[in-house]
């Protein structure tokens, strides 16, 4: 079967002024000295355009930490890509935003950690909230696609309605309410972040009511914590089906978390053509079709919808990347998820203010 690469996620740096307790970047981050130079990214974007890629997501870390961000944006547009900047807002002022828009930036996704300043700064491990509010005003005053992203978890879900109200008046076209996904640093802080069952239910009700009320004005994307799901998420819409992520050093991966899986070798986009990496490199083909699937996936009707779920999560929770995603209630290893949730729900009140670990910034 042929798979068309649709979007490239360019993780242009791991440097970040924020230290979010649920950061999804890998535990081992790339240092500045290993980052690809501008011309390598230019070549990657060019190749992506030639392969029929539509979307380029410039992300990090904080992509604005790169001094060549305007040039990179310009190169993305020149390669006929739709350019989306995924940012904390730190490093964005009026003139830089105008330069980015002039260079062809299509869309900005701005992250918030909360709607109240004190907890927002606590979750981010830095005082960035007030600045983000100013950046939102700058974006609102310009004609550019604008999405607000708020990651939600046990400690901020109580303010979900206020978050929606903020987004409603922010000038954004879309709000993404994303429950933490438990990879990278977030996996380490999982027990302090996982919502209770009751909180989850309430968040679903709030989002459904808001969607109804804001129809035609604000779109709301909602990412659920899949531990609570009956069936797994179609992670990345299938391994190597649509998306390629390239890390700051040029390693090309099917998703940002894939390096947790032992034994995978990721080709470097500086050394290999993007087309070869996509079509032939073992890291992209190994879980692409169905040959790897165990039972119950192999004979399950849902396999064409969820592709067996997430390989990284299967590895993190069962030790085998080729296992059925254990969040699936049909998975033989589902007990590991059920037990985690049971224990978190039993102790959630007692551990409501349980402390977490902040991550540092790569040099």
């Amino acid at each position, binding site marked *: 079967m042929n798979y068309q690469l*649709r979007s490239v996620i360019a993780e242009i740096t791991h440097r970040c002024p924020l230290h979010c307790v649920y950061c999804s970047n890998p535990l081992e981050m790339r240092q500045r000295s290993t980052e690809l130079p501008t011309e390598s990214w230019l070549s990657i974007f060019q190749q992506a355009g030639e392969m*029929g890629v*539509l*979307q380029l997501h410039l992300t990090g870390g904080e992509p604005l930490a790169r001094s060549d961000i305007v040039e990179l944006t310009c190169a993305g547009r020149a390669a*006929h890509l*739709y350019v*989306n900047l995924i940012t904390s807002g730190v490093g964005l002022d009026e003139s830089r935003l105008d330069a980015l828009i002039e260079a062809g930036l*299509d*869309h900005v996704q701005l992250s918030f950690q909360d709607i109240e300043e004190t907890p927002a700064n606590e979750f981010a491990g830095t005082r960035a909230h007030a600045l983000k509010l100013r950046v939102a005003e700058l974006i609102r005053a310009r*004609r*550019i*696609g*604008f*999405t607000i992203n708020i990651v939600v978890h046990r400690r901020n879900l109580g303010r979900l309605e206020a978050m929606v109200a903020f987004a409603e008046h922010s000038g954004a*076209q*879309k709000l993404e309410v994303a429950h933490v996904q438990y990879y990278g640093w977030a996996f380490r802080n999982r027990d302090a972040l996982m919502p209770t069952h009751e909180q989850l239910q309430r968040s679903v009700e709030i989002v459904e009511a808001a969607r109804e009320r804001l*129809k*035609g*004005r604000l*779109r709301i994307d909602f990412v659920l914590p899949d531990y609570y799901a009956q069936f797994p998420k179609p992670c990345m819409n299938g391994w190597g089906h649509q998306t390629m992520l390239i890390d700051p050093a040029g390693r090309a991966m099917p998703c940002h978390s894939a390096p947790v899986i032992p034994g995978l070798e990721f080709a470097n986009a500086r050394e290999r053509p993007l087309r070869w990496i996509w079509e032939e490199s073992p890291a992209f083909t190994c879980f692409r079709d169905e040959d790897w699937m165990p039972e119950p996936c192999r004979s399950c009707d849902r396999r064409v919808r969820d592709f067996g779920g997430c390989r990284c999560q299967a590895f993190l929770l069962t030790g085998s990347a080729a296992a059925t995603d254990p969040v699936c209630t049909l998975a033989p290893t589902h007990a590991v998820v059920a037990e985690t949730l049971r224990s978190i729900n039993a102790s959630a009140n007692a551990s409501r203010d349980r402390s977490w670990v902040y991550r540092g910034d790569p040099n």
Partner: protein
Amino acid sequence: MSELVQDSVPQLAPGCRLNAPGQPEDLLLIPEGALRLKGPARSIVELCNGARTVREVIERLQRNHPPENAARIETEAIAFLTRLRDKRVIECS
């Protein structure tokens, strides 16, 4: 949400644009991906420049076709623009 009427002035919403002309296929690029444009769809979107009303867009389209097609062009253009408006790909003032 305001109804799409003849006096509405449609234009592409922020974050939505046509791909460059001369590509293998005509696409409307949007934050979530892309919409494939077939037949006259691209030229309809190009006419929605934030200055013309729906009525003027339709008149422009009708000019290039025999008069017996005028009613069908109007119905189809309005249906198409309504779909784009419902997807929030165009906005109307």
